[in-house]
């Protein structure tokens, strides 16, 4: 329990140790720790930014998909409309064609009938003359009864 010359020795040792610790432990370790802190903060910020980017990309993808879907639906609708229109057109054409064919057939039929009637008319007078001459037993001059025959023919 005395103060002795050891005091000076101890002061020297401690002073040296303090300076040594400052130079070789405190400052390097603090620098390293601060470095690490900064790098961790950087990494966290980067990961946050990455997550944000991913979110934005996801949103964009969803938007693109919904746009594509809308477009596809539109195209399908257009296709359907075009289809029904084409059907309609085809139907109209078919009907038109059919009526045209029918009309032509009708006209031909009419002509055929007229032609048949004409043929009949031509033969009616001959038949009538032949019939009458057979009934009467004598030759009948067709020219002499032309008016009667014409009248008959016109009645057919």
């Amino acid at each position, binding site marked *: *329990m*005395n*103060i*002795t*010359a*050891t*005091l*000076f*020795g*101890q*002061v020297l*040792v*401690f*002073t*040296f*140790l*303090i*300076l*040594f*610790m*400052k130079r*070789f*432990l*405190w*400052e*390097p*370790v*603090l620098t*390293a*720790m601060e*470095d*690490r802190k900064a*790098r961790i903060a950087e990494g966290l910020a980067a990961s946050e930014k990455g997550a944000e980017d991913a979110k934005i990309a996801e949103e964009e993808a969803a938007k693109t998909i919904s746009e594509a879907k809308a477009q596809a639906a539109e195209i399908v609708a257009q296709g359907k409309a075009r289809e029904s229109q084409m059907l309609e057109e085809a139907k109209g054409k078919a009907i038109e064609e059919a009526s045209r064919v029918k009309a032509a057939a009708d006209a031909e039929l009419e002509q055929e009938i007229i032609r048949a009637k004409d043929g009949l008319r031509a033969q009616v007078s001959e038949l009538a003359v032949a019939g009458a001459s057979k009934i009467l037993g004598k030759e009948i001059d067709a020219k002499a009864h032309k008016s009667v025959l014409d009248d008959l023919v016109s009645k057919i």
Partner: protein
Amino acid sequence: MSEANAPAISNPVEYIQHHLTNASLGGHPKALVDFDVFFIDTFLVTVILASLIAFVSWRVGKNLDADNPTGMQNVLETIVEFVNQQVKDIFPNADRLIGPLAITIFMIVFLMNLMDIIPVDLLPGLVTGVASAFGADPHHVYFKAVPTTNLDTTFALAIIVFGLIVFYNIKNKGVVGYAKMFLFHPFGKFAIPVNVIMTAIEELAKPVSLGLRLFGNMFAGELLFLLIALLGFAWAIPGQIILGMLWSIFHLLVIPLQAFIFMLLTIVYLSLASQGVDEH
């Protein structure tokens, strides 16, 4: 065990006195302050412990790996971070010297206190044994292993702190500001003589209390270990083991606590010293 320790119980006073005597150069101290004496054991243990800290710190500081801290680096990083946090909390905008000062005090005081946990007869017995082998009289071979049970050690630290207190006072207040603190400090300008005495006591009490607190705690601990060691005879041995264990456990609390208190008060005192001139 050597002859010096063996008959402990037969002469308890001599046993304790023997253990409380330092190995010294220049004889034993004759007065409270005797600068002719040099305690070789205290100094040696301090140098060894300081070298240990310095060596480990140097190795860790040289091989710092910020990304992949391992082993000792983790330990030292934890201590550095802890001390740095204390410094930041108590002393914002601290000077760059405060942190290293605080961590050095913490580590060296802790290690010096930790010497108290080594069985009281182990190191002295070893030294006595070696010295006897070289022909020395075991009764006059002394070895006191715990540096902090010595006033020189604790006051060496306290003097460093005191010197820094004065340095930071002058640095931050200026010589005039520091003088003004002595002249006008507690009672204003009408009680200058009283102020000087009061402030001087206040300032001197800081290093004295620092040194004496650590010394007292560790000396008392050491003394109790010695008393417990006296119980080393036949029927008292179970009691010795139990008491020794209990006191060791308690002392394990005291050891880091005293180191921490010394460090904390150092920071507090230097923080106070670094405040600008305050009006009273």
